[in-house]
């Protein structure tokens, strides 16, 4: 009994520690600027300033930033899911020489920090004249090994007998991929979709290096420049932060189960 209560107590403290910064963000976004920093802290704004949520659209490029981010997230996710699952089928179900060595190279690069090769990558991209365009981010993020890795884990759990039976029936490998594997792997595809979507939405460094023109900025870059420009407008900055976080929280809550499953499978078998 005591241990149970103690457990709840620790859990409660941890939950508050995790959530309080988010709560503070939301509350501050509904305050006037002068009320953000007060002694003591106002945990409930006396008079919520909803107009912050209207003002930010006219004071910033929020519409452009969100538009770019949605576009990038959608294209990157689509490519990552398609090319990733397609390659994963090759790695998991087709036998050919050199396959396992190649897969090792994929996995190996997961352990190489991007920061260590971002310089040569940038030089290459600028020679291809892809910098300062949305294409650079698409190229950068769409072909990662993560999708291959996650989908391969899943395809390997599908029995070979099933695939062989389809082969005997004369189905081509592409047919097996499309008509057997894809329908079977909807949960894994959902995981990969969510993970990629969240990563692309939240990426800051990629866009920072590659997207120089303001009309190409993503929400992360835009928010950062807004913070620099209006560094004393605390309430509005928090409003912008809420708007940058909200879509991802909604997506996460909607697909939480898949998200957690995806992390658990990619995480465990490294």
């Amino acid at each position, binding site marked *: 009994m005591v241990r149970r209560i103690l457990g709840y107590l620790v859990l409660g403290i*941890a939950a508050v520690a995790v959530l309080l*910064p988010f709560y503070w963000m939301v509350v501050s976004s509904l305050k006037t600027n002068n009320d953000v920093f007060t002694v003591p802290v106002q945990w409930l704004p006396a008079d919520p300033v909803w107009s912050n949520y209207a003002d930010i659209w006219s004071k910033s490029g929020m519409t452009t930033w969100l538009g770019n981010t949605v576009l990038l997230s959608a294209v990157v996710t689509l490519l990552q899911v398609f090319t990733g699952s397609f390659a994963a089928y090759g790695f998991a179900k087709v036998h050919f020489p050199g396959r396992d060595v190649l897969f090792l190279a994929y996995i190996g690069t997961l*352990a190489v920090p991007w920061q260590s090769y*971002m310089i040569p990558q940038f030089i290459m991209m600028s020679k291809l004249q892809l910098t300062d365009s949305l294409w650079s981010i698409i190229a950068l993020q769409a*072909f990662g090994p993560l999708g291959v890795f996650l989908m391969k884990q899943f395809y390997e759990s599908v029995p070979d007998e099933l695939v062989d039976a389809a082969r005997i029936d004369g189905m081509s490998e592409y047919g097996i991929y499309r008509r057997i594997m894809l329908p079977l792997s909807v949960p894994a595809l959902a995981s990969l979709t969510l993970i990629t979507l969240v990563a692309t939405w939240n990426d*800051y460094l990629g866009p920072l290096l590659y997207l120089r023109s303001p009309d190409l900025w993503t929400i992360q870059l835009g928010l950062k420049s807004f913070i620099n420009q209006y560094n004393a407008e605390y309430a509005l900055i928090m409003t912008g932060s809420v708007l940058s976080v909200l879509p991802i929280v909604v997506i996460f809550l909607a697909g939480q189960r898949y998200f957690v499953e995806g992390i658990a499978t990619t995480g465990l078998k*490294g």
Partner: protein
Amino acid sequence: MTTTLAAGRRRGRPALRNIAVGWSFLLPNFAGFAILTLIPVVLLFYYAFTEWNVFGGSTWSGLANFRQMWDDTSFWTALRNTFYYTAFHIPLTLTVSLGLALLLNRKLRGVAFFRTVAFFPYITSIVAIAQIWNMLFSPSYGPVNQLLRAIGVANPPGWTTSADWSMPAVIVVGTWREMGYYMLLFLAGLQTIPAQLHEAAKVDGANAWQRFRAVTLPGLRPTTFFITVMLTIGSFKVFDLILVMTDGGPGQSTLVLSQYIYQKGFEENQFGYASALSIVLFAICFLVTIVQFLVNKSRDS
């Protein structure tokens, strides 16, 4: 039957066909991967030995970049700070996330809710999080220092405005952000440990701590190993959190290696020198991963 069929496919013409089919599956992803990841990694080892002029051309300069590094005090500061972050971030995150996982692995009400909650910091953007924490840490009116004053700390630190406390502040936020992710990996690991092992230990009269030492920890070995590797690489490449929270400051108190690479490469256009710095980052991560693999292997046998 399956094996004979698969074996048959590997011989003669079917094998050739398999190569073509296999590669056709890999190619859409592999082409992008090779051009955008493999080639840059290889180029890195060439660029590190070159000097770049203002017009964007490169000339071979041998070990000059590495000699420059040796005398570069900023480089040593960045390296020291990177190790500082790593040395505290890894044990802290391991402890907190394992503790949370153990707590959430029990049958308490509200566990599902907390698992979701713990994940929030990890899925939300660095820019927003860094900004929230910067404001929470604000020296005079920030909620953190208000709390510290309330519990009797007369002169709470200035956090991100103080050279001594900026790194601890960044480490706290880094841990807060990542603990939910690693907690989840630990939870998945805990669920692979058979419940009978715990039962048996209980019957033998082992108390909770003994069961943790004798059953849980050994059972978690593969998970702990994987998490430590991930955490190590993650800590050595830490960058965006620091860039947005402190921009390496005040002074150079939070300047880390990847940020220094960024400054040299993208702000000063010294691509050769930045590549040489990148090699150091690459080498550290590579060595640490190899060492961890060897240690893990020797424990296995």
